[in-house]
């Protein structure tokens, strides 16, 4: 083959593109991964934006990554090192706080401080959630069956799904449906009375999605964020050594070790077809690269409406893709800090900062933050998911200094009567003022501030409307329907063109499943084609 001929070309070097490329290369395909930017990782990157301070600009924690990918791609060999968060810290507005950590008994006593009723309720909640997660995980790790498929393979997959759903106790299936269709608030109200505890848990029900905890749909988001694990402990989160950019560098090294080639600063202009099937890509600089397999790791809008001439696609499909919803609602403000923030209720302790710092003290606080977004504005008192990785990973900042990643909601992509370029500093000031109210003196610690609006996410990473999941997490856009009915099997209406980004099943977060499952589809199709 000549230097511009490949078996497979993956468009987009985000984590799913890298995972997909690694699996294809491992299977022996001559694989090229194309990345538009100067570094791979997509939204999972670490950058030294201020001397000595390493920022996780976008994605900042790890839990959903499928453990089988770690094994199958031999990631440990390439430096995979997830570090468990020691604790999560949720300050209350009255100066009190909730700290939950690795020890169940300690957690139980901490919860009793807030509500004696909730001490045992928490055990039941965790158990019930684990049962639902046990039910869901096999579905996450497999492509959804094609409801409309006509092959014996499709029928068998559907029968497997039915028997899996029937294999669990009715209560577990009912809990699943309550989560998939209901609100986080309704689900949590059944267990708890403590506002602080509910605020803390419900925060996981709004991440990346334009819903409040009282909106239907937030249950699904809550479930999704409880589905991961750290070393077998469900719902537990960790940091990757060196941030999530450290993780994507690991996957890139694994992909290269299997023989994949990575080209940076190589934006793709179009996916090239011939006689209705994929034959390669054309780069923005005019270079043509050929391959019988082209895989897009971009979101559905860019995969189908930008890389492809829509006249090559069925009309119904174009309609489905056009109305696939994004409406990003998250932003980030990351800080280089001269020292750790001081929480007045715990001024003599620092161990609470090893994990998430959750500024979402009640469900009402979260819902009111959402209210602003409903009408096209960012929250005046935003939800903040802080994370100071440098507390447990000294490589992130100079000795004694810290980097604080702050994930912010709500920051709707569409602002009413203004735009993000105008509002970015005022928005960041709002975030900083909120932090100041919980951590007096916070502003004095700030050495550098990085503002990432939804518009920045779209411009820099390429995620449409800044949606961090490459498409909203709501039931009509999940499972059979992600990204469009009939196209949840990683194929596309164009032969040889595949999709492997977070806009496909199971969805977003640093999870790797779309990349892996797409590679299985591709390799099966290739084997079939070789037979016939």
């Amino acid at each position: 083959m000549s230097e511009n001929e490949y078996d497979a070309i993956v468009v987009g070097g985000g984590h799913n593109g890298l995972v997909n490329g690694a699996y294809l290369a491992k299977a022996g395909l001559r694989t090229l991964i194309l990345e538009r930017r100067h570094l791979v990782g997509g939204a999972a990157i670490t950058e030294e934006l201020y001397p000595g301070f390493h920022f996780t600009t976008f994605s900042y924690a790890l839990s959903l990554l499928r453990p089988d990918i770690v094994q199958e791609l031999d990631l440990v060999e390439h430096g995979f090192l997830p570090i468990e968060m020691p604790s999560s810290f949720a300050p209350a507005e009255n100066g009190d706080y909730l700290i939950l950590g690795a020890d169940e008994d300690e957690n139980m006593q901490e919860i009793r401080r807030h509500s004696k009723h909730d001490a045992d309720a928490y055990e039941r909640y965790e158990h019930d959630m684990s049962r639902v997660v046990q039910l869901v995980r096999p579905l996450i790790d497999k492509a959804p069956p094609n409801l409309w498929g006509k092959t014996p393979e499709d029928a068998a997959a559907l029968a497997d799904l039915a028997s899996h759903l029937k294999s669990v106790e009715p209560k577990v299936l009912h809990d699943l449906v309550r989560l998939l269709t209901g609100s986080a608030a309704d689900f949590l109200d059944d267990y708890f009375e403590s506002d602080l505890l509910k605020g803390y848990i419900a925060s996981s029900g709004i991440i990346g999605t334009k819903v409040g905890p009282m909106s239907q749909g937030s249950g699904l988001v809550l479930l999704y964020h409880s589905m991961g694990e750290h070393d077998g402990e469900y719902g537990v989160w960790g940091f990757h050594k060196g941030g999530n950019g450290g993780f994507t560098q690991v996957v890139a090294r694994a992909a290269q070790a299997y023989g994949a080639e990575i080209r940076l600063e190589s934006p793709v202009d179009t996916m090239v077809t011939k006689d209705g099937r994929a034959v390669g890509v054309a780069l923005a600089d005019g270079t043509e690269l050929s391959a019988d397999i082209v895989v897009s790791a971009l979101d559905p809008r860019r995969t189908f409406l930008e890389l492809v001439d829509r006249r090559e696609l069925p009309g119904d499909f174009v309609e489905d893709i056009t109305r696939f919803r994004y409406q990003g609602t998250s932003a980030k403000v990351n800080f280089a800090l001269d020292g750790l923030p001081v929480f007045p209720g715990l001024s003599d302790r620092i161990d609470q900062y090893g994990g998430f710092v959750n500024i979402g003290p009640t469900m009402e606080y979260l819902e009111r933050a959402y209210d602003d977004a409903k009408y096209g504005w960012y929250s005046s008192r935003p939800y903040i998911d802080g994370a100071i990785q440098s507390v447990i990973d000294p490589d992130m900042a100079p000795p004694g200094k810290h980097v604080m990643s702050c994930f912010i909601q709500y920051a709707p992509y569409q602002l009413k009567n203004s735009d993000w370029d105008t509002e970015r500093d005022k928005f960041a000031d709002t975030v900083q003022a909120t932090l100041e109210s919980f951590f007096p003196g916070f502003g004095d610690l700030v050495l550098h501030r990085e503002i990432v609006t939804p518009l920045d996410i779209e411009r820099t990473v390429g995620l449409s409307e800044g949606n961090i999941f490459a498409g909203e997490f709501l039931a009509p856009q999940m499972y059979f329907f992600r990204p469009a009915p009939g196209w949840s099997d990683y194929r596309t209406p164009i032969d040889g063109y595949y999709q492997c980004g977070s806009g496909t099943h199971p969805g977003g977060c640093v999870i790797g499943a779309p990349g892996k499952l797409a590679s299985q589809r591709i390799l099966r199709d290739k084997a079939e084609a070789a037979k016939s």
Partner: protein
Amino acid sequence: MVKTTPFHDRLEPLNRTGLWAHWSGYLSAVKYGMSAKHEYFAVRNGVGVFDTSPLFKYWIRGRDAERFLSGVLTRDIRKCRPGHAQYSVWCDDRGYVLEDGVFFRHSESEYFLTSARPNLGYLSDLAVGYEVQIEDVSDDYGVLAVQGPRSRAVLSALAPEVSDLGYFDHTAAKIGKTAVRISRTGYTGDLGFEVFVPADEAGAVFDAIMDVGRGHSIRPFGEEALLMARIEAGLILIDVEFGSSRLAYTDQERFTPKELGLGWMLRGIDTDDRPFVGRDAIRRELATKSSRWAMTGLVLDWQDYDRLHAEAGLITPKDPVPLPWESMLYDVESGDQIGYATTLMYSPVLQRHIGLARLRPSYAKSGTDVHVEITIDHEYKRAHAETARVPLFNPERKTSNPDRKTANSDRKTT
């Protein structure tokens, strides 16, 4: 009355758990926070300190010190130059291991020994006729292990001598006003040092190390985290992998150095002229290949382990705290018992269940498929596992120096 170490008044307030083990009659922290895993991560990712003061400590001094020790120790101590240290075992006349320890050679005629069990009586009895003085100074020093990738950065800020200290080398240094001895040794299989401090000045040295360490996320770690690290590092432990031959009831409880995976310590003993206790038996064992066991690492098959738990409706446990009991190993085909794992754990850095195994030598080749017995829902099940070379985790930083990527290969030691 249980004793406390020279660092105890500093460590006691840091131990949020209230849990203390008894180690050689001293209080020793099991863990300082509720999760030993975070202490383990300090060692693998930042820096941790472990109070290893309960070790027994001896000065062995005198004109005949080298000649005396070279007749006692299995490994050739004559190769240990001043400023270097050697890990060694010593055996009985049948070639079974009595004990192990680390010998720090301070000068031509001075050695400092640390060992897990008391040894003054045994060594003194053998020293008759040699010009050598053996002194038990166990209570005179505190020993603080400073371990992890950031350990060099922390200690070299206090004692610049540390910055180019080679693997298993040691040096005199000052921390604040205190004269200390710092060695590039430890029991974690990572970059690390041990600081020997006069007992009455231990607190000040501890404070200085923690002050500098704060910016490097330093934290104390307890016995649980140490055990996790030592298994990954393939380091044997008395009363787990072996016990003193002198105190054994049966030969089943006795092990030769070769059987403990210490064959590297025996290089050259078939030809050199050094007489030492157990030499003839060891030579015979090597010549006739009569070792009963081999030590290997064990890596469980993750898919099989997952499958067995999933079939039982359980979430696969991945507990890093080592099992305190043996797990039997079987031939995959015949089902015959072929050995046992002395301990098993889930390794967070390797992302696998691992163990240390004692197997019949014919199974010891790396990559041999064996069955390990595990308990799932109160039933014995057998999961596939592979033998693997120890150490299972062996980062380059353990032996490397900043200016010299890898240490001399003749420094092979544990």
